């Protein structure tokens, strides 16, 4: 009940801000589209090459958007939390009797849904421009997205806990976010890496999320136009395992670090 109330508050707040700053929302979308198209066209010199490369490029585009989603969610727990502490908003959220974990779960869920909606529009525009094909299997996509969200917020909670205690961690988290983006773009390359590196890569929350999402949206497409089930993709199972482990570790770490920050007197303060 408490979670639903907080979720409602976050949804209403998100919608009000989106409506109030609609111009910024739309221009942000246009800038992202323009930037991505510019990057792609800069790498591909002619139309023939573009047609030949479209699938591979489109794969990278999906990876980029998944990476952006990861950056946004983890960023909410790092720089976002740092910013909230700086302005004093965090102290107010700490005053909620529902607890910080519930508040951040609701906040991150709303942020994730809004980002996914924005990236869906962007992906559709890019697919149309690059003649890429997206397979829309709502159930599989929703399932993989939900697991991706769980996986990322688990990791985000761990980073967020560290930021509560050591505010400067927010800057280091920027590097972590960039690593997540790079891995999301090049997730396919993981298979070519040595076994020990592959093992590490599978522990990173975005690797299997990106592979599974690319599979659901593009890779699963077979020559006859049919899609094979996500259930045949091993990354899907890694993703389930990752999501479970990261969520448990993340929330446990966050709770422990929240108490530590109360000891240190840094909770809510910058």
């Amino acid at each position, binding site marked *: 009940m408490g979670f639903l109330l*907080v979720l409602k508050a976050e949804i209403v707040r998100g919608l009000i*801000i989106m409506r109030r700053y609609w111009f910024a929302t739309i221009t942000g979308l246009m800038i992202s589209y323009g930037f991505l198209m510019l990057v792609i066209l800069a790498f591909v010199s002619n139309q023939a090459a573009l047609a030949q490369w479209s699938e591979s490029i489109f794969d990278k585009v999906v990876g980029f958007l998944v990476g952006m989603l990861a950056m946004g969610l983890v960023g909410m727990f790092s720089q976002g939390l740092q910013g909230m502490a700086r302005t*004093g908003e965090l*102290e*107010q959220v700490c005053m909620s*009797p*529902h607890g910080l974990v519930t*508040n951040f779960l609701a906040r991150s869920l709303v942020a994730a849904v809004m980002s996914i909606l924005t990236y869906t529009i962007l992906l559709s525009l890019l697919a149309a421009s690059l003649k890429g094909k997206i397979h829309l299997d709502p159930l599989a996509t929703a399932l993989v997205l939900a697991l991706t969200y769980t996986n990322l917020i688990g990791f985000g909670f761990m980073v967020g806990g560290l930021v509560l205690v050591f505010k400067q961690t927010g800057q280091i988290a920027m590097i972590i976010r960039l690593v997540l983006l790079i891995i999301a773009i090049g997730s396919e390359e993981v298979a070519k890496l040595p076994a020990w590196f592959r093992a590490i890569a599978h522990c990173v929350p975005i690797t299997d999320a990106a592979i599974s999402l690319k599979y659901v949206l593009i890779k699963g497409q077979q020559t006859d136009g049919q899609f094979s089930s996500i259930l045949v993709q091993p990354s899907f199972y890694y993703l389930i395992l990752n999501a479970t482990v990261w969520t448990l570790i993340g929330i446990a770490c966050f709770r422990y670090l929240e108490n530590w920050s*109360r000891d240190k*007197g840094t909770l809510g303060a910058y």
Partner: protein
Amino acid sequence: MNMDPIIRVDDVHKTFFTHHFFSKGEKTGARCFHEKRRVHAVKGVEFGIQRGEIFGLLGPNGAGKTTLVKMLSGLVRPTSGHVYVDGLDVDRQRLKVLRKIGVVLEGTRTSIWPLTPLENLAYFGNLKDVSGKVLKKRSHELLDFIGLSDKKDVQVRRLSRGQKQKLAICIALVADPDVILLDEPTTGLDVQSARSIKDRIIEMTRERNKTALVTTHDMGVAQELCDRIGIIKNGELAACKPTDELLDLFSEQVYELRLDRMPPDGTLGSIEGVLDVNFEAQGDEVLCVAAIEHEYALRSEALYAMLARLRERGVQLHSVSLRQQNLENVFLRVTGDPAS
């Protein structure tokens, strides 16, 4: 009537540790790789606040006032000791305690600026477990009460500092808490806004039976608002008394005698019960400020003796008055400011 204090601070200590790298050592002055410094922010503070009371916490910068408020709201954990709100241990039952308190912390952005006051109240109301018709009704009532009804649909970023502070108080009150903690509520506000906020705090406690803890640097605010005052110095509670009693504590001792001229040296010397005498020329008169023993019999004898000595030396007495002490003087004396 329940006479248990609604807030009880029980022998609370708070020590912070800070880590310094490549800094000059505090004791040796030599540069070292790492040094851990200890700061005792609060040392053995004890007090209780009754229901419906306005309790003022005064102290110089860095005395530990905000740390105490943060301990009361569960943002900071005491190193030892306990803080109770309505019988609940803040450390162990923090989430339950948060349903009973509203907090306005100093110098922070307590509201969301792109939203209007009404939207802010809806948002924070939900965060504090208030919803539906109750929230709607209470939001309008609070905005009426604080005098922000005409600004209810204006984005917070367009409001003045005073209006933002009023909104912060509304947000703290949106869950109808029994206790409200106000950290420097009038700092940086113009006279009118400060007046309005003071009036609302008084109204809130008197008419709605809320309990308020106010920290402030402004002695006027404390004297005007608070039923009882605690003066905190270097993390220790140096005094904790009802405001009138605190003012009386020193005012009974200091007398002002206006004389027609400077009496000869030693006139008022070695009189039993006279603690200190100072003379100051003021135009045609001389002002004699005498600090006298607190105890009634001694004080009476000392006053008679002083007047007798002045008469013997032929000094005319224009007036005798008891110095009206204000909280600022009391504060300076308690905190040991040499200027006092």
